């Protein structure tokens, strides 16, 4: 991605709420939160090279932990959020140490089981989580530094800041030693170990960072939806994230965001019925894998190359 893309993206996203309706601001916020979650999946798919069907568990843990801290202990959002994120990273480290030794289908199955366990705990631990009825009436984040987040637009800007800061930080990360070592491990574990890369430590670090980003999406979900219920955190949510990454472009960071915009904004806009969503996601995944394995970003790059070639040939 060229250097102009990120500032341009920020300007457009920042300007949008000024020109669109309140419902569209809601959709934009939803898109941004999905983009944050897809970004976390993009790290797993593209840089750890694993498919994580349990990624939504990290979102769920952060969402419930931060909200429960607020509702039960009266903590402010700004104190509850970092605690919840620390919890998620800690859990990711423990889970990663166990599961990242596994390869291919075994990792996928164990992470799927992990996510189901988390969901079942949330659904059945009535006294704490209120079970399937969920937590209701979650307030927007408390004002901080004189900024109120009571309005939908203000909350949208908060989510946007989280997305942009995450994206900027991850863009730096993948170019740093950590990013390169992750890619090396993904490419050839035996060679990576041989040149002196501590494989498990790299993978666990990668999963922790990914869980942190997923957690960022999680802490925003409660105040955004004002309700949290276990039904929001099923396998399908992880699949949605995967489809977003694949549609946008695996192995990039812009890809997940493009995919999230595509798959959140467009179906909602066309008012697709919600229960068709899993089917739609499956169809999209098949079509993209067959016809555009590099995703939308790959199509754009191919288009750019074609244009450049035609311009050159025309001379």
């Amino acid at each position, binding site marked *: 991605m060229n250097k102009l893309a990120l500032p341009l993206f920020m300007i457009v996203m920042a300007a949008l709420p000024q020109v669109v309706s309140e419902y569209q601001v809601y959709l934009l916020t939803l898109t941004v939160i999905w983009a944050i979650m897809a970004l976390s999946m993009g790290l797993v798919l593209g840089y750890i090279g694993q498919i994580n069907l349990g990624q939504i568990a990290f979102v769920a843990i952060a969402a419930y932990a931060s909200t429960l801290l607020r509702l039960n202990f009266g903590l402010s959002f700004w104190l509850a959020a970092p605690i919840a994120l620390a919890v998620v990273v800690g859990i990711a480290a423990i889970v990663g140490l166990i599961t990242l030794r596994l390869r291919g289908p075994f990792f996928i199955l164990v992470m799927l089981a992990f996510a189901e366990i988390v969901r079942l705990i949330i659904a059945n631990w009535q006294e704490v989580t209120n079970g399937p009825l969920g937590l209701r009436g979650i307030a927007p984040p408390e004002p901080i530094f004189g900024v109120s987040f009571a309005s939908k637009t203000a909350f949208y800007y908060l989510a946007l800041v989280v997305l942009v800061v995450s994206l900027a930080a991850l863009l730096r990360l993948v170019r740093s*030693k950590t990013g*390169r070592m992750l890619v*090396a491990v993904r490419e050839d574990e035996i*060679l990576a170990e041989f*040149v002196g890369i501590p494989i498990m430590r790299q993978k666990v670090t990668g999963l922790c960072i990914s869980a942190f980003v997923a957690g960022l999406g999680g802490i925003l979900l409660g105040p955004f939806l004002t309700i949290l219920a276990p039904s929001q955190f099923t396998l399908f949510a992880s699949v949605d994230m995967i489809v977003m990454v694949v549609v946008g472009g695996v192995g990039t960071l812009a890809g997940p965001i493009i995919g999230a915009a595509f798959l959140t904004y467009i179906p909602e806009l066309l008012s697709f019925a919600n229960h068709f969503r899993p089917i739609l996601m499956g169809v999209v995944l098949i079509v993209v894998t067959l016809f555009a394995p590099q995703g939308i970003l790959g199509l754009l790059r191919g288009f750019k190359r074609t244009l450049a070639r035609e311009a050159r040939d025309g001379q």
Partner: protein
Amino acid sequence: MASEPFLAVDHIAKHFGGVKAVKDVTFTVNRGEILGLIGPNGAGKTTTFNLISGLLPLTGGEVRLEGRRISGERPDRIASLGVARTFQGTRIFPALTVRENLETALLARAPVGFWADWFGLPAARAIHAAIGGEVTNVLDFIGLSAQAERIAGDMPYAHQSLLGVGLALALKPRLLLLDEPFAGMNPNETAGAAAMVQRIRDSGVTVLFVEHDMAAVMGICDRIVVVDQGSKIAEGAPAEIAANPRVIEAYLGSDEDA
């Protein structure tokens, strides 16, 4: 200790279940020489390599580097002690460019702090700059400067093979193990690679290599060790080996077999 050889391979053995891939192999490598390890297919050459570099645990015997036992250590530990290797069929990071491949190998052990590098602090940037310089040197040495920005996996096999040697050199070894460095190369490329092996030795690195290409082996080795069916059958200068009846028998089969 003065009498300790640079690398001592001392009665090593490797059994896979009932199969004795390496029965009993003993030889030494002297500092600064190019030693060729040859033998017919299935003789146990690559297994011997895997035992020295720690990729496989030994069934018996031990390997010492300057008198210090290295067998039983992890492969990355052995590499950090100064024994680097290439892999048969070549291992590289295919999706990365040639430059990025070498950067990765150099970066792996570089003392770059996680946070310092994430946020691009000057200390981390200085290390990256130093690594950039080293990469240029290695690229020059292996003759891939012109291919630096190519995706490694898209290059012809001979170039990938050179990059494999470059990755091993990036670990700054004192002993370099090359597993069939000339496989898949045409005579021109073989000559170039053989010249490179000699330059590696001239730069102060001891070289031990496994190879099928007898012409190349005879041309550049100081000494040759011949293994057959998991045991050493001969050792000596190239001319002696070429005249050794046991070696000829191992390669061509004895009259009784015919």
